[in-house]
């Protein structure tokens, strides 16, 4: 086995895993704060990326387009809280889950209705080429763009960690995540908190949308990356930000390695389900995921 090639695949997988983590983060945020398993996250990623690209196409500069899209996502988050979630307070989780599937349909239809359904290219100015010194020195090809994406993800996780740890709103968010009723009792406005969480999830969706859009083009297939994020979630635990990152790395690396080394034996194309099988086997050992909160619960 070629060691350099192995490391190339491994690093490529880890970096692809970071991209999964970016999407998984959005799920974790909302699940943590409201206990809603938000299936519409993929649709939000798509909506954010499509909105951004379409605004860019109008000839508006990058930062302004970013600001406008962020505004759209924040308004969307608040709107979702008001129209969809508030009437569904106290419903069982499956009802809320179904509502977010309905929401995913609405967002997918809406974004294509407004911006059209043709795919767009997205250029962030970072070429998707191998790092030169790495390939010269060790003969390992690692994409510059993927390293950049990893950097963005790291920055975002750091920012979120600081936000959760040191700001007033962040503390309120953690309180709500811990116990809705206790949070209400000490005077945390649940409504505002939920709107904020959805807005933050919208921001995460925007970043994920930009990264994925720049890599694969902004097209309808972006909505399916939510499915890629699910094994990451069950591996890392639904309510853990570090879990989303570590889970993403594990899934990304093992998926790529399996595709390269096991794939040819069984006819290829195993990436569609391999991540799920890893996550499943893992769950059999540790049902709450890697970093999930330990719930003492008989099943």
């Amino acid at each position, binding site marked *: 086995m070629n060691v350099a090639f192995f490391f190339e695949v491994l690093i490529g997988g880890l970096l692809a895993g970071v991209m999964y983590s970016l999407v998984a983060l959005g799920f974790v945020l909302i699940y943590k704060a409201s206990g809603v*398993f938000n299936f519409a996250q993929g649709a939000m990623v798509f909506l954010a990326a499509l909105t951004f690209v379409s605004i860019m196409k109008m000839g508006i500069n990058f930062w302004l387009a970013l600001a406008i899209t962020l505004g759209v996502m924040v308004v969307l988050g608040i709107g979702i809280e008001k*129209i*969809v979630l508030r*009437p*569904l307070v106290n*419903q069982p*989780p*499956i*009802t809320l*889950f*179904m*509502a977010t*599937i*309905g*929401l*995913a*349909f*609405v*967002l*997918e*239809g*809406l974004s*294509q*209705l407004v911006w*059209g*359904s043709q795919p767009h290219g997205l250029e962030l100015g970072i070429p998707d080429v191998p790092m030169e010194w790495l390939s010269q020195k060790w003969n390992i090809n690692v994409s510059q763009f993927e390293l950049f994406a990893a950097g963005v993800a790291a920055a975002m996780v750091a920012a979120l960690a600081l936000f959760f740890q040191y700001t007033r709103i962040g503390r309120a968010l953690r309180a709500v995540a811990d116990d809705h009723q206790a949070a209400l009792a000490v005077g945390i406005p649940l409504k505002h908190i939920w709107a904020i969480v959805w807005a933050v999830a919208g921001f995460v969706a925007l970043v994920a949308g930009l990264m994925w859009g720049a890599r694969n083009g902004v097209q309808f297939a972006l909505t399916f990356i939510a*499915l890629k994020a*699910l*094994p990451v*979630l*069950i591996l890392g635990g*639904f309510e853990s930000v570090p879990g989303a990152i570590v889970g993403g790395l594990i899934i990304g690396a093992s998926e790529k390695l399996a595709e390269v080394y096991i794939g040819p034996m*069984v*006819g290829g*194309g*195993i990436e*569609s*389900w391999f991540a*799920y*099988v890893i*996550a*499943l086997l893992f*769950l*059999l050992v540790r*049902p709450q*995921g890697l970093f999930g909160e330990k719930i003492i619960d*008989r*099943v």
Partner: protein
Amino acid sequence: MLYREAGQFKATYAQDQQIFPIRQDRIAFALLLAAAFIVVPLIANQYWLSAILTPFLILSLATLGLNILTGYAGQLSLGTAAFMAVGAFMAYNFVLRMPWLGVIPSFILAGLCAAAVGIVFGLPSLRIKGFYLAVATLACQFFVLWAIQRIGWITNYSASGVITAQKIEIFAYAFDTPVRKYLLTLAIVAVMALLAKNLMRSETGRAFMAVRDMDVAASVIGIPIMKTKLLAFAISSFYCGVAGGLYAYTYLGTVEPEAFTLDLSFRILFMVIIGGVGSILGSFMGAAFITLLPIFLSVLFGGISHATGMEISHAVVSNLEVIIFGGLIIFFLIVEPQGLARLWQIAKEKLRLWPFPH
């Protein structure tokens, strides 16, 4: 006035335990069956039979299967379409390789194969629940479709993975027209719905509900959790498998694995939720609603563009349909989270008192 059980006394246990204890219900149900078996084939045209009614019945059966698992046993599953795919492709193989078996036994065997797959993918339910389980069943969805596409034996080595369902013949009687296919589907669905209704009223069904409501309490009163959960997966997958066989044989005819994507699983889950979680009748109502809604919407948009003379492009219409579909689901969940079956129940209670207020 008309709908009241006053004066109907139950003198035997059999009378007390019948499915429809009220005479008016029995009459109404008999009329409904008569309409479905006799009137519909006489008046419905080919389009209605083959494009609307047959798929409606098949999806009702699949919804019923999922409802047994999710509604009665409380295990969320997103792999319904995969179980249907197992049913469809195994039915094809049984008919192909054991032609002497006949179509109906092939369907049953295909259903049993789906049940076996269901048990395997139901194993995680012994350790995990809720959304973790739902995501685990997604593994089934992707794995089964991948396996069907990769393993040549399943599709009889067809290059594109597409199979063509054989002609259905039962005792040398060919079910080849839309009317005959509709009647065959209806008969199978009716029998299986009756079985499901009775199963859910029996010890098995009550064990499912006990596990759903509180598994610890259920195990304390002596219900074997493992057996009950796996049985729920098996029965549910059996129903989905038979539905898949029918989907291939009486509706699609030519089947590709892509017919059973996650989208179909979600649609069936919608049918369960909109119809009513844990209700046999609700499965049918939900399936009817979700099947008819897109047709209604396209007719509506056709009417609007005709009336206003405005040309609405196809892309806009399909996007609007998706938006309205999603919006209606949210609306329904907000207004009546118990589903259409609950509305029906309320209507019946109101009808019982009518015209008096109390």
